[in-house]
């Protein structure tokens, strides 16, 4: 084993430069790494890996990954020109990730957040059962711990190889947002290049605040699908972050250098609402996760957060009897 002098340069990767797709400048990889993967000559934002995104946004050393062990299975036995498990394995080897999303808890300028981050390199950041499950758990953790939720998306959409189970992840990731609304917990969506299809048609469009990176491709249908269907060329800049800003679907287009500071400001300006002691006035009834927690911790928590643990133990799966006003709604 060769002995390395402590000052020796890092071993350069085999291709030491990358060509910028926007201005065609040759950018040294080391320089790209130092400039947060933004082209120094034209400002083009290259895609980032999950790891780089964590280092960019979160306080150093604060991120703790959760549910790292979730793994995709092959529910349909899907086979196109090669089996789905082979594609998964290839993506795992390429990225070192288990699936296209990593979620965990960390701090941004001292604000504790539950954050989910996509990695586009893992099967195009596509959302299958694992991504959906992790996002749902991310939102539910935000609910239980009463901390803001953030999702940084980079995804082609739902994962075709899991069929309608992927489609159902749209609903699965959206349902917890209703509970965040009721509990007064903010959700910030960060849209990066590219955010399309089923990911945009679910939680990513539903942020209380939506910020996007400059020139990111953001749209419902791919431009190719759109021009195939409509039979005409799409206008230039169609489906860019700036297009969405102009049409009122994002709040701000934020350059990467300012992203962390912008999130920190938003977290300060949009705090979690004070916990409602009278949780039973919640018109949607109790939160299953909270009542689950109450069950585990016994009556003590139940009293402080206003959940009737007795009712839950009676086995109806619901922590509180519905308010009479809600009962009125039930048609006979």
């Amino acid at each position: 084993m060769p002995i390395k002098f402590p000052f020796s340069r890092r071993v350069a990767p085999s291709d030491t430069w990358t060509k910028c797709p926007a201005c065609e400048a040759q950018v040294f990889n080391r320089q790209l790494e130092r400039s947060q993967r933004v082209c120094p000559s034209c400002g083009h934002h290259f895609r980032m890996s999950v790891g780089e995104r964590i280092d960019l946004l979160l306080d150093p050393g604060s991120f703790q990954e959760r549910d790292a062990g979730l793994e995709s299975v092959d529910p349909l036995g899907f086979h196109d020109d090669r089996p789905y498990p082979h594609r998964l394995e290839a993506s795992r080897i390429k990225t070192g990730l288990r699936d296209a999303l990593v979620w965990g808890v960390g701090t941004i300028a001292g604000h504790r957040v539950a954050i989910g981050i996509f990695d586009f390199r893992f099967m195009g950041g596509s959302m299958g059962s694992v991504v959906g499950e992790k996002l749902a758990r991310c939102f539910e953790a935000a609910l239980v711990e009463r901390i803001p939720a953030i999702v940084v998306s980079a995804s082609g959409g739902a994962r075709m190889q899991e069929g309608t189970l992927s489609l159902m992840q749209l609903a699965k990731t959206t349902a917890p947002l209703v509970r965040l609304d009721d509990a007064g917990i903010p959700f910030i969506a960060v849209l990066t290049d590219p955010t399309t299809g089923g990911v945009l048609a679910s939680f990513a469009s539903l942020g209380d605040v939506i910020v996007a990176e400059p020139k990111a491709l953001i749209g419902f249908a791919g431009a190719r699908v759109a021009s195939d269907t409509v039979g005409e060329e799409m206008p230039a800049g169609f489906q860019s972050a700036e297009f969405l800003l102009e049409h009122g679907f994002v709040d701000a287009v934020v350059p990467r250098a300012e992203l962390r500071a912008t999130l920190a400001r938003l977290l300060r300006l949009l705090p979690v609402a004070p916990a409602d002691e009278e949780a039973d006035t919640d018109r949607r009834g109790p939160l299953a996760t909270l009542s689950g927690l109450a069950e585990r911790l016994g009556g003590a928590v139940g009293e402080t957060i206003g959940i009737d643990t007795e009712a839950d133990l009676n086995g109806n799966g619901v922590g509180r009897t519905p308010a009479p006003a809600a009962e009125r709604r039930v048609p006979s």
Partner: protein
Amino acid sequence: MLEATGQPSEAAEERAWGRLQLARHPQRPRTLALVTEIFDDFVEMHGDRAFGDDAAIVGGPALLGGQPVMVIGHQKGTDTDSNILRNFGSPHPEGFRKAQRLMRLADKLGLPLITFLDTAGAFPGPAAEERGQAEAIASSIKLMTGLQVPIVVVVLGEGGSGGALAIGVGDVVLALENSVYSVISPEGASSILWRSRDEAPAAAAAMRMTADDQLALGVVDVVIPEPGEGAHTDVTGTAVAVKAAIVAALRDLAERGTAELLATRYARLRSMGAYLETGAPSGRRVEAPSLRRRLGRILRLPGVPRRSRWSDIWPSGTADDEAERGA
């Protein structure tokens, strides 16, 4: 789970493709045809109160055996002219926003909601993008997950991706025998995954889009048998079968209180998907820090990070190949 072995067989392709052709059959009864058969009265309401009226989605209050309910459905045409009017059943954002308006009204008055799915998908054109197609679908889904009234979903023909799910989140999902439900059209899947539009039958089989397969996956709860050779041969018979299934589903749901209804709906959505919980730690292991890094950290040498970074575990690859796409 379903049996899984290699590429779909020819027989499987034929079966899936046959079902798809029936689901797309030009004479297949559409939402309005069935609504007039199933319900005693129906008043169609128009417009999203913001932009316009989308003929690809129809809806309004109706009477089901004397009980008022709210009905929403995709509407395909029956001939060329009506298909152009209905945009072949592919809604624009204003269609979904009209649906949302009707859902809120149902919620306000406590009317059970019954939706009929029959669309190849939401329209992907530039006008739809400009008016927020993705936002319209997302907010419809969100609204449905929290509605305080029972929701029964009926898949009539094609359940096409997000455009179908936007009015397809329910407590019970019924599907006609020859209907299909998929995350992307087989033609779309074929052109993305097989890089040719000719492999649509293989894609249809691989995606397991028939009603029976969806029942096995848990996406659909009940499959409604169709009369004769298919729904297009007997509209009245189909309506009778659909009506019976809706009434049975509503009877079961009526026993649930609002809180239980919402908790059960949440649990149903939450349970969708298949994955393995390994409990393994994250990603690939970081190599033990080199002598240079260990010394550098102590001596604070330039270029040596003070602590290990996540980008050391998950760095960007050098090659940005983006062959994989989602839907």
